């Protein structure tokens, strides 16, 4: 009877570690995402290569404040040394050209999954997605380009929640989200394909969540570039502390994208309504092309 009690207690203890029938299951739920992945480049190729046009905010649910920030942004700010090596924030970096390596960090004794790690060669970013139910840090902790991420498996979908972000691109034509933004992501594996869904929330710069998807394929061939050294240089001599920007109402590019694609300037300035099909009808009713 005493042994019986001990076995029952052991079974309960092991059960608490997520075992299935037949004993302790060190692997846990989910699927393996490990390997080297590359983006499907023809998706949003324009965004990944040359980048978006100036004042092309079409389809982005930005606030008036975010729009004003974007219109004040002068691409010449990239000539300031301190801006030159600025990392693409985790909510944006998956839309770039990059190689992605994913691996697991497991407790060597229990084989419990502690973290899923990612290395993104673009800006040489190592990202940790904690899988051990640890809490997010307090508000006073530093904010980083990759943020602080915790993950959990929803079936075979890895869902990741990230806080403690720095300011970073919504779009690299001047639209930024703040350091108060949070990010929810889903990593969904279909064989050798991986779909990444990102849902960015920032009440300061977005009127509703910005949802994006991008796909990656598993790469079995080595030989990718895995480094991204960046050293800033003075490109233009300026008085100390100069910050290139456009004063309100003086952005010279405000009509460039709209004129090029024959769309109303209002549409190019974005906002949640420009993301929906009804907006086209609205423009037609208003008599625009």
């Amino acid at each position, binding site marked *: 009877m005493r042994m019986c009690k001990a076995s029952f207690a052991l079974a309960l203890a092991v059960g608490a570690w997520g075992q299935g029938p037949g004993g302790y299951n060190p692997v846990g739920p989910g699927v393996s995402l490990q390997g080297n992945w590359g983006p499907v480049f023809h998706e949003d190729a324009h965004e990944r290569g040359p980048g978006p046009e100036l004042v092309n905010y079409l389809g982005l649910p930005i606030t008036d404040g975010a729009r004003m920030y974007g219109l004040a942004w002068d691409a010449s*700010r990239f000539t300031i040394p301190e801006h030159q090596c600025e990392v693409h924030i985790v909510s944006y970096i998956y839309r770039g050209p990059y190689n992605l390596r994913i691996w697991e960090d497991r407790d060597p004794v229990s084989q419990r999954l502690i973290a899923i790690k990612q290395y993104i060669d673009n800006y040489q970013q190592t990202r940790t997605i904690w899988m051990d139910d640890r809490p997010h840090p307090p508000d006073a902790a530093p904010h980083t380009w990759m943020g602080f991420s915790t993950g959990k498996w929803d079936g075979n979908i890895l869902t990741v929640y990230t806080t403690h972000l720095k300011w970073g691109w919504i779009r690299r034509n001047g639209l930024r989200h703040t350091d108060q933004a949070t990010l929810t992501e889903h990593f969904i594996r279909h064989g050798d394909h991986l779909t990444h869904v990102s849902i960015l929330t920032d009440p300061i710069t977005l009127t509703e969540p910005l949802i994006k998807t991008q796909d990656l394929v598993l790469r079995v061939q080595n030989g990718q570039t895995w480094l991204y050294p960046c050293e800033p240089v003075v490109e233009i001599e300026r008085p100390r502390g100069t910050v290139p920007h456009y004063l309100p109402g003086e952005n010279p590019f405000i009509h460039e994208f709209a004129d090029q694609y024959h769309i109303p300037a209002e549409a190019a300035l974005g906002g949640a309504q420009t993301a929906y099909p009804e907006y086209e009808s609205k423009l037609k009713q208003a008599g625009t092309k």
Partner: protein
Amino acid sequence: MRAVAAVLALAAAPGIVLAQGNSGELVTLKVQGNVYVISGAGGNIAVQTGDQGVLVVDTGLAAMSDKVVAAIRKLSDKPIQYIINTHVHPDHTGGNVAVRKAGLTYVGANVTGNLTDAGVGAQIWAQDNVLKRMSAPTGQQAPTPFDAWPTETYLTGRKQLFFNGEPIEIVYQPAAHTDGDSLVIFRRSDVVVAGDIFVTTTYPFIDVDRGGSIQGEVDALNNIMDIAIPGLQDEGGTYIIPGHGHICDQPDLLEYRDMVTIIRDRIQAAIKKGMTLEQVKAAGLTKDYDGRYGAKTGFGTADMFVEAIYKTLTRKK
């Protein structure tokens, strides 16, 4: 061994929680090297510990001082020997009396002047204008108690100290947030304490009545930019403890410096057009940043920021 290494690496990373109470209580985080930050007591408090003792930068609100002393004691039981005030405001100096009382000054035969109170409590260092504003001319009522006043001041340039094996510089930033601002630079730990020149919570509160100015604020932010060197891939490296808000590195400061500079430039352009203060306030020149930095009440509102910039840019020299 690998697990041990991972734990050690984690403990060395900035922002690791060392103590966290319930809501409304203090949070203590390691910044890096020998420097920690205690937040939740008013302004951020930096604490440097080592074999020689404890050095504290700012002391928070008076009402929180018991908790502050307790939080410092959790970091080290060595004597609190130095307090440095980054500026005069009570959310940074309010705990001076209690923290000073919890510490001590080692004295010897070379102490000059009145020996009766030598060794009583920690020394308090600050730029000279902090003392002037905390005290009062003879015969008048001082706004703060005598025990809260700086015991050691400097006038211009910088004051230096070597403590706990680390060079520490206290660098004057004239007419910035106030007329008595100091940066405190821990050179080995590679941490800068910015005081309220840099906050992540609101617009900078430029205390014009106490000698602050927009140009001094911009200059001071650029001075911190010059000191701070980002680490690998533009992150970490030199850490900056703002007067309020989260631990920062240079890219965080850069965003803030850009914001302050851009708004200054806009208001300067509006003044050149002949706009009045009320017209500038009504023009919404800060709308792109109000959601992030515009305090709804108290210090650091958009109106206060605009007014301070306007007043100091139009002030007759």
